[in-house]
């Protein structure tokens, strides 16, 4: 099979180039179908953990940004 492909490539490099994305998509979707996907319970757990982390850090960060507002008034 590989040999046939090589031969083809030697004849027509354009065809080989066009084949690369197709090959890539095929391999990728094969991999995806083999993958273990998270189930609902796991997914909600992940979303919760990431969400809490994101929002918590974001709120602390935003609080600091708020401190900026009076400082801006003072120096500008």
């Amino acid at each position, binding site marked *: 099979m590989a040999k046939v492909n090589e031969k083809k490539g030697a004849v027509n490099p354009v065809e080989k180039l066009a084949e690369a994305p197709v090959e*890539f998509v095929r*391999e*990728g979707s094969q*991999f*995806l179908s*083999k*993958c*273990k*996907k*998270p189930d609902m319970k*796991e*997914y909600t757990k*992940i*979303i919760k*953990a*990431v969400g809490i*982390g*994101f*929002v918590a*850090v*974001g*709120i*602390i*960060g*935003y609080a*600091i*940004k*708020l*401190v*900026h*507002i009076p*400082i*801006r008034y003072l*120096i*500008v």
Partner: protein
Amino acid sequence: MAGFRLIDVVKPFLPILPEVEAPFEKVSFDDKLVYTIISALIYIFSQFPLAGVSKEETVVKDPIYFLRGVFGAEPKTLLEFGIFPVFSSGLILQLLAGLKLIKVNFKVQQDRELFQTLTKLVALLQYFILANIFIFSGYYGEDLSIVQIGLLNLQLVGAGFVVILMSEVIDKGFGFASGCMTINTVVIATNLVADTFGFSQIAVGSDGNKEAQGSIINLLQGLRSKHKTFFGGLLSAFNRDYLPNLNTTLIVLAIGASVCYLQSFRLELPIRSTKARGVSNVYPIRLLHVGGLSVAFSYILLFTIHIAAFVVIQLIGKNDPSSIVCKIFGHYESVSNLFYTPTFPLSLLTPPKSLFSGLLQQPLTFFVYTAFMLVTGIWFADVWQGMSGSSARDLALQFKEQDITLTGRREQGVAKELEKVIPVASTTGAALLAILAIVGEFLGLKGKGAGMVVGVATGFSLLELISIDYQQSGGQSALAQVLGAPGRF
């Protein structure tokens, strides 16, 4: 020139540049957490407005507005360029070293030190160059005096220097994961909260009305305000394009959720111990093997291209549509007095402001931008998985050290099997992330989509590192006891 190595050039700078010393003993979990959070917060705190900028409206507007979200860059503050220089010099130099374009022997202590210094120096140089490009383009105002130029340089480069050192603190083992990634994640999280719940009032329109920055707060205000009807308030909450609206917030959240979903895709390879019989387990290979780095890399390239174009068009062509330079490279048009959007050749790499105007005015952009993101992302993922510490070869070595092997494989076959899986996983993951970022950008997120992809992907790996560290050494953590969380992660 045989024997010439780029890293030797920086030898004279080795004693001059300050360096963060690696911790003498193992840093405890609490300390790490505190170092990580505080340095990210210092970063946010240092978004001070620049002094010495002329007060009048300048003609030159922001040419990189859609790239800022990914690099935590705030216009006209000390962090004009965010962590872009640190990020790009770290990533690009490591890439070059991995491709053997820069000769570094990472086994030699001195080479490692030199490489580090080189990375810092390149980052500093980038801050300097970017600052001066912006200064001389007139972005901070026309005809600045020498004092002003010096002052601006001092501020931008000085702030950049602090950022470099701060990310080094985290890199060197005082924090989790890599410094720029951590800072980036925190900035993106902050921006998300500010765009959703931010209640600072910003004047919009000519009649001096004020609207809240956050989309949800704006919705509540719009429903109660007197100068709008109930329905009009609702409509503007979803549609305003000068500040974050509910649509963008929802899209950003959807992107974040999809990244989380993709993040937990994994291929579970059955493994067993070679020493003890009957002990079998699974080893997960992630779909997002390289994480958000691939999208970040694409954006680093975009940033570089756009800055280069800005130099050509603004500094050389003076943004004059009749000059020859601008006829070739296009020129900038200022949009709603805030942004600069480039015209034809460069517009191909600029995501459209909204989906419909993009479809009508620049249909080619959809192909070129998509192709650019996909090709660079996949190429990067392919190269990176081969050279980072988790390549197939390294993993096989790790397996051998820990006396485990894939079920049904001989020890020699392990590397081969892994080599079949890991490159496919990382490139496919990179392609999917790129697609998510592209979809977000085409829906008119102005960089928030890509920023969210990078932020959530790195935030996820950060959370994972923290939880691993917590399980290993969190038993004595005073912070966990105070928070009363025995094991929430």
